[in-house]
């Protein structure tokens, strides 16, 4: 797998902030290694569904909502960027 560019990580930070209406969060607040859900950024299960929809709309990536694999992809920003890099069709 090729190293994920910082540009893509920054793009994903903006996607997360805009899609999830994180009014007080800036891209600098999102650490690539910190958990996105519950701890770290503190997103919830509705955010997970919303983010899944945004990935589908923006990059054409379809995920299974309940799978262990999806759980891994959503663990942190770095895993999310790796998923987009590997599976994007647009």
């Amino acid at each position, binding site marked *: 797998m090729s190293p994920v560019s910082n540009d893509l990580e920054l793009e994903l930070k903006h996607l997360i902030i805009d899609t999830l209406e994180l*009014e007080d969060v800036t891209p600098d607040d999102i650490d690539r290694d910190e958990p996105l859900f519950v701890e770290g950024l503190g*997103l919830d299960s509705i955010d997970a*569904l919303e983010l899944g929809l945004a990935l589908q709309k923006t990059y054409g990536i379809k995920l299974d909502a309940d799978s262990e694999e999806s759980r891994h992809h959503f663990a942190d920003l770095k895993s999310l960027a790796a998923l987009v890099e590997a599976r994007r069709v647009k």
Partner: protein
Amino acid sequence: MTTATLTLEDWRAWQPGRTPLDDRRLSVEERPGATSLPAMLRRRLNGPGRAVCDMLAALDPGADCVLLHASRHGDAARTLEMLYALTEGEPLSPARFGMSVHNAIVGVHSIASGNRRSLQAIAASGAEVSALFSEARGYLAEGEPQLIAVFSDAPVPARFAYHETHSEPASAVALRLGLATTPSAGRPLTSHDADEAMLRDARPPHPSDVIAWLLGEAPLICPTRRLMWILDS
């Protein structure tokens, strides 16, 4: 069944655009701060939702009152626009779907405040004030010492405005109510039959009409129930 008189113990109101008064109970902020909520919960609320949560935190700081929340249209902007998205084959936003339900605002408040009491959402086709007072009487008659009755509304989306006789800007009001039989320092609040002359000019009350009534500027009348309410000093 009690016939004891309702009492108004305290109130809060939000009406952006209204001339500010030297009264901390009335907020005219365009966008309420909703500082009673953590940012991660606050982000999904619209203006009335933010105002309602702030008013509930002020009137029920212990988060142990029964809460009634009435709204004629609820978050019609989200609900109706989602129906359009569906007809156009667009996927629905899960967050917007979650917040489109009628009890969404008190639900968010409950999560933030830890209030685990009865939370009731009401829509009454223009008779929201009457429905709130009826429900309040029920809970108080069953022994609740006090409760909070909230009424909020926002305009319906522009493409539905044609169906609205009286479109009003967003506003919200919250009343902490008790009964005259309990030792509270509230103002007696009584209902009366409205006379024909009053009914002729009356429209279904909006939260802004309740605010005008609380400030002593106008009577509060419900034409469909043919009732009016008097607040003694």
